[in-house]
């Protein structure tokens, strides 16, 4: 497979059919620079991945002395329809991803624009936006449980006061996933900071050129800012997709998968299967299903990126 974010220099090389001296030099240095990372992958990542794939073909139970190779039985069981939670958790996770990814990207980009303005106390504001990401979950989860409490919570109190409809939030079967999305938005500090770094890399001259032409802020946003941060948007989109599919701790800490299994996220179910029910072989099969799903989505975004991601440093 070839997830190619960059234009087809390999294709061009192939057409020529010869390997020039310059290309060989590039190959040498390319491998030299990337070899620690490649080695690291082969040593620390690939081994455990291969092991877990092998285990997904077995009935591995950590506590059992014997492990039997059972081929694709685990996968067959998954797709046989017997494991209702498999489908339910997959559905819950997709719903979460669909809601969360656009929300995170749009809101964190807007926040980054705000924080990139030249206002007093900017450092302070940036730090505050990042604070929820470093407050331990035991502390912040208490806050969500209070804010989103259906009866005494601040959010419903305010909604009630404004004569808007209230919600049972984390405790309603329909509202639990949107509510969890909402609580995760407090943790977007990291995404905002990456956007800020992206914004700071935009050459000033570009804006000055628009000033000379008499363009306003919308022009700057539309024609400079957004195109120039597309590599960052791309990065944040990919990472948010990967992270959202693997949502775990919110279900673990806030809801334990409830009410009525409506927030039973895939990785939470997988973790429970692996470490509470000790069915590690089956859990590994679950994990590889998710792997393929994430791979497909990442692949799609990478493929589309050619048409919308603009790399200043990679024009041919």
């Amino acid at each position, binding site marked *: 497979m070839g997830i190619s974010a960059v234009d087809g220099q390999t294709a061009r090389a192939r057409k020529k059919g010869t390997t020039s001296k310059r290309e060989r030099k590039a190959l040498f240095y390319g*491998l030299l620079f990337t070899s620690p*990372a490649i080695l690291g992958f082969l040593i*620390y990542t690939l081994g455990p991945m291969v092991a877990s794939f092998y285990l997904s073909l077995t009935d591995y139970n950590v506590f059992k002395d014997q492990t039997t190779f059972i081929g694709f039985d685990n996968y067959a069981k998954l797709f046989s329809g017997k494991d209702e939670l498999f489908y339910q958790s997959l559905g819950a996770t997709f719903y979460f991803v669909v809601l969360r990814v656009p929300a995170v990207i749009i809101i964190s980009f807007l926040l980054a624009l705000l924080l990139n303005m030249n206002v007093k106390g900017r450092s302070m504001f940036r730090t505050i936006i990042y604070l929820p990401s470093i407050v331990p979950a035991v*502390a912040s989860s208490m806050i969500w449980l209070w804010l989103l409490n259906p009866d005494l919570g601040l959010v419903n109190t305010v909604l009630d006061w404004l004569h808007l409809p209230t919600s049972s939030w984390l405790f309603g079967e329909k509202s639990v996933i949107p509510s969890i999305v909402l609580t995760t938005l407090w943790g977007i500090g990291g995404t905002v900071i990456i956007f800020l770094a992206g914004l700071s*890399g935009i*050459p000033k001259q570009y*804006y000055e050129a628009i000033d000379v032409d008499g363009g306003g802020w919308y022009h700057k946003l539309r024609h400079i800012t957004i195109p120039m941060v597309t590599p960052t948007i791309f990065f944040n989109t990919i990472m948010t997709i990967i992270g959202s599919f693997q949502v*775990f701790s919110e279900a673990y800490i806030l809801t334990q998968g409830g009410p009525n299994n409506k927030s039973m996220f895939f990785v939470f179910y997988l973790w429970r299967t692996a470490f509470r029910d000790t069915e590690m072989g089956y859990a590994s099969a679950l994990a590889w299903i998710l792997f393929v799903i994430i791979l497909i989505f990442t692949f799609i975004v990478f493929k589309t990126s050619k048409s919308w991601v603009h790399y200043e440093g990679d024009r041919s």
Partner: protein
Amino acid sequence: MRESRLKLTAGYVALLIVSVMFIVPFVWLLRSSVMDLSQIFIMPPEWIPKPFHFENFKKALTVLPFGTFFTNTIIIVFSVLLGTVVSSTVAAFGFSRIRWKGRDMIFAVLMTGMMLPAAVTLIPSFIGWKELGFYDTFYPLIVPAYFGGGIFNIFLLRQFYLTIPQDFDEAAFVDGANYFQIYWRILLPLSRSAVIVVALFTFLGSWNDFMGPLIYLKSDSRFTLALGLQMFQGSYTAQWDLLMAASATVVLPCVVVFLVGQRYFLEGITLTGLKG
């Protein structure tokens, strides 16, 4: 950049509103850290401790050997920081500024390392490190940082390197520079903001990492701060007042590091000698 007064004021107001929303968990943590156990959970929350229990800090920090935990954390965090910053910037350079056959394919393969839930690789990784004889050492926590420093960081830096115009490299090549010099003199300075982001995330991630130390360490003389914090949770109840005081103490260095680190963000790079 000059910005209009109106826009600044509007932005300021928006920032204030957002900040109030985002500071709540931190304030909750701080006020809980000096509260009486029975006041922490009163709902709706009370924001002023009555009375102030500053001795929570003293109790929390003396009941467990936090000095040892702190030293261990510092050793791990700074080793990881150095390894990650060096090896991820180098790797990202190879994946973005040099054009070589198979580059994007190998990069794609590396990306797959993020896509498998960690719950199922935990045990194979643990067994691997243990077989190598590194159980109960810092190596499993530190060494991988020197081998790429994580695909997340490489990917992030790659995205930034790709935005820097190639003209620089070509000009430098003409002047007889080699790849290392281009990496050191051009790419690193121009991508300073991204490198700072990587450093900040690495620091915070390593500082707060719980699962890694939990799995790979066993002697409490090697425990880290993040591992120490969980020791306030009991079999039936947790000592929330002490837990909050200890958590606040552990979080504060992170806040300071972040506050200082983000100051070194670039203020929009200046490309001299280039037309806009």
